[in-house]
């Protein structure tokens, strides 16, 4: 597992049914591009988060494919319409096969 990886999400605790809410997500990750060289001139292997998904009650909200040019600690902010109370599930997929997950419940206001 890459070191220092920690997912963070910010979701309102409650929302009115059918309203759009703003979700912010950030995962700390070094996002090594695979293009850089170390002090000895050897290529540092690529190590990035290559995919990010958000689901609400099992339904896909957003899916993002990430490429090596994305900077360290990728941050995503997006809106989602919430039809009912439920749970958001966020998943990040690492090049090394690791999967990081976070969930956030949301209630109806």
């Amino acid at each position, binding site marked *: 597992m890459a070191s220092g990886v*920690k997912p*963070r999400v910010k979701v309102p605790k409650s929302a009115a049914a059918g309203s759009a809410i703003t979700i912010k997500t*950030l995962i*700390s990750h070094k996002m090594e591009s695979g293009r850089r060289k170390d002090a000895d001139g050897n290529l540092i292997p690529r190590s990035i988060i290559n995919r990010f998904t958000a689901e609400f009650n099992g339904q896909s909200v957003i899916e993002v494919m990430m490429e090596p040019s994305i*900077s360290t*600690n990728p941050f995503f902010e997006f809106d989602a319409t919430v039809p009912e109370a439920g749970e958001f599930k966020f998943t990040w997929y690492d090049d090394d096969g690791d999967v990081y997950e976070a969930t956030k419940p949301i209630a109806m206001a």
Partner: protein
Amino acid sequence: MIMKNKSLKSTLGAAVTLAAMTLGTSAAFAETNLDKTLVINGETAIVTRAPAAAHLEGALDEVFSGWIFRKDETQTAQMDDFDNPGMIFVDIAQDAWDTVAGTEGKSCASCHGDVSESMAGVKATYPKWREDGGLVRSIDMEINNCRTTRMGAEPYKLTGGKMTAMNALITLQSRGMPVNVAVDGPAQSMWEQGKELYYTKTGQLEMSCANCHEDNYDLHIRADHLSQGQINGFPVYRLKNAKLNSVHARFKGCVRDTRAETYKPGSQEFLALELYVASRGNGLSVEGPSIRN
């Protein structure tokens, strides 16, 4: 001792005018909104402009946080801790705070407990004179002093990531409180030394701190919008290098830009300068970890 170089000011002014003509736009010189207010997370109000401390009489009437001089996007990012990348490092330091290190089997928490209680208000008065040891210490020096004398651990590298993160964690506990660094008492001689350095021209460009940050703040030096060089926002997350930056590392960068051989981070010279520059921000809020360009 105060050396105001009027000829330099006019040279800079001419350069700015020339740049404006070349670009054919005045957009880069939009009026700075000095009245803009900073509230973090909708709850912590930050003082970003304040009457200058008494010791600045004749030099500055009012002091401004560097936040004032940044672009809208950068300013906005600092209003929500989730958007502030500096907070990632605070998280990392919180883990380090609770982790045992060194031969004594202690963590920071072993002695200091909950950081939000033990470190509240600490940053606001640093650097300051410490009777136990009879010297002026910065927060960074306190951290390493703890690590080496109490924990039996290796000191952090002064400008390294672990140090800036720990400094940020401690600084955060004082966020919103007024900077209140003592300029008299036993620290006064070092403060005087720092003041001397602030007004001393260095390097091939023969520029002092004051030439940019006192005589010409709010003007542009090529693409840079000059601030007053206040350090109330340190450690700062800089967009240019995507990490937290320490005060001494910033000093080093500035002195290097005057094309001088710089003092070393951790040197007595930079400690004196840190003490003096911190005192120039007395009255502003502790703002770190802040975001700058």
